[in-house]
């Protein structure tokens, strides 16, 4: 039971981040490596603000804003300085390492003695007794679903339509007399905002910030998006954003299985193999759907 709880918690926290990756990778078709820097940026921001006594819920919003700024920078580097997309992300990711260090003040900032969004007198009064075990999951679930529904709603606005058009067919965006570069910047901003928000939640859940917590974020994000979208393609009643959240949970489940059933040395290999199996299964499913047509 506990392990399932853990997988759900971790899956949903990284799911918030994966929603950001979904925007760049799936909607904008922009391979954005900034996330390896913007995820810990959100965490660093929260660590800094929480140690200075800022309300932890407020830090979520500020972290989101910090991520937005990081995304805008990547966008400006790409659009205005005409640097290739992959490279723009790498440049920002590298720069953010230092920025994160400066923001947090040191490489590891513990938050054990501080109030977080998961642990404060208000929350602790609501969740008492048995319910206390589900406290983290419920809060994370609310946050992840809020992000999902807000993103869904955004994608249905005029601005959201334009964003989808930019990834689909950027010629059309120009035909509509809109600057496709600007649309890309907006997309990157929202995406990195979500990633930083995920980082903020992560830091508050694990109760410390560590400079290296961003390493490999893009891999987890991409894996979640790809697992979610390709495995659950057949379930058309699910929105893509929902499948991304489920994909993130599945990815964390793979890690949990690898951890629980195999010797520690093989953990990464097993995770990789499980990931591969999921992808192959989803491709088989796709074939079946096609032959059924």
């Amino acid at each position: 039971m506990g392990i399932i709880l853990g997988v759900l918690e971790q899956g949903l926290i990284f799911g918030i981040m994966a929603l950001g990756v979904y925007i760049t990778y799936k909607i904008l078709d922009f391979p954005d490596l900034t996330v390896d820097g913007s995820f810990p940026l959100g965490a660093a921001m929260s660590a800094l603000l929480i140690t200075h006594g800022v309300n932890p819920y407020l830090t979520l919003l500020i972290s989101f804003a910090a991520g937005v700024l990081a995304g805008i920078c990547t966008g400006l580097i790409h659009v205005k300085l005409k640097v290739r997309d992959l490279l723009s992300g790498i440049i920002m990711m590298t720069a953010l390492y230092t920025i994160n260090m400066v923001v947090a003040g040191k490489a590891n900032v513990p938050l054990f003695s501080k109030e977080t969004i998961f642990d404060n007198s208000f929350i602790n009064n609501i969740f008492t007794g048995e319910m206390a075990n589900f406290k983290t999951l419920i809060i994370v679930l609310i946050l992840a679903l809020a992000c999902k529904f807000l993103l869904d709603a955004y994608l249905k606005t005029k601005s959201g339509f334009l964003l989808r058009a930019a990834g689909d067919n950027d010629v059309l965006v120009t035909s509509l007399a809109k600057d496709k570069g600007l649309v890309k910047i907006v997309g990157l901003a929202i995406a990195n905002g979500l990633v930083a928000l995920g980082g903020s939640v992560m830091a508050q859940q694990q109760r410390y910030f560590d400079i290296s917590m961003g390493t490999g974020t893009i891999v987890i994000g991409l894996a979640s998006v790809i697992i979610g979208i390709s495995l659950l393609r057949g379930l058309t009643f699910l929105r893509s954003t929902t499948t991304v959240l489920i994909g993130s949970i599945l990815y964390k489940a793979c890690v949990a299985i690898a951890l629980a059933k195999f010797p520690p040395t093989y953990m990464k290999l097993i995770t990789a193999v499980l990931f591969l199996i999921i992808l192959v299964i989803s491709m088989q499913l796709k074939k079946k759907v096609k032959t059924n047509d």
Partner: protein
Amino acid sequence: MKKKMLAVILSMTMAAALLGGCGNEQKESSAAKEPAATEQPAPQADDPQAAKEPEEAGDNASSEENKPASGLVEGDFTIGISQFAQHGSLDNCREGFLTGLAEEGFIEGENLTVEYQNAEADMGIVNQIPQGFVSNKVDLICAIATPAAQSAYNAAMNSGIPVIYTAVNDPVGAELAKEDGMPVGEVTGTSDKLPVDAQLKMIRELLPDAKKIGIMYTTSEVNSESTIAEYEAAVGQYGFELVTTGINTTADAPLAADNLLSKVDCLNNLTDNTVVSALPTILDKANTQKIPVFGSEVEQVKIGCLASEGIDYYQLGIKTGKMAAQVLKGEKKASEIKMETITGSELYLNTKVADDLGISLPDDVKSRASETFTEIQMAE
């Protein structure tokens, strides 16, 4: 096109994970099997663990047989070990921890089940490991290195499962202990704070004319930062000046080494994980310029550092294991045990390196050494 490129990156990451897995395994097995080349003859013992750490047998009577003095403790115990990364010192810690438990009557396979997990330095996974332990309702979690300790404490906080950590450089800074060393909750353990004064004293003895000491460290490792601060405060006393260079990844090490070597009379190495990984490169560069490199623990001296006044991670592990035993036996709660720092240090020398550099080692230093190596072990 872009997606294709991403797919390539992704598969490269997976391939790296694959290679990493194999490499680490190799390292682990060779560390466990290869006997160190020492001047002291290794005493023959039936217990494989005693054979592995020969110096142990000599001065510690109780650990000689690794048999508990008072017999096995009644009951079945399960502990989870969460180790942050594959690393010589951390591995020694883990082995020492199990030895310490064994000495107190908890023997793996008899009355003790050990669930060992290694996060391979992945911050996402270091969180998931203790969650698994908590859901399996282990009796105690042993966490090795700072992020593992913080995650374990966070996961176990509301479950009542005690956490015993080791190899945490600054437990107070990591908010695992209060200023007076008492725990902040059901969490206690040992710190691997380096004996900075002893090390500086030793360097002064070996290099009477040296003026500048260089230290390379990783900006992301909080342990290194706090140790450097200690060095800053202490070097003046011994007539040294400190020059530091920060790096981010092992890839930065060669350039940083060139830069640093041009400014200093000797290098001093911390327990910084990234720098330790790049140590062979650094040693190679230092040797061509005949600049001695000092280590911070025995493994580094084995692979070519001149000397180190370091702590014995195996001993640190034993000490930690005994703390864990107190908690498992119910003698004390973790929250009642003060965090411990190892006092005293062990001197390790490498005479082969000294000969290569043309440094003559004073006799009193030689006799003080707890272990002297006569050859340079090839680093994997």
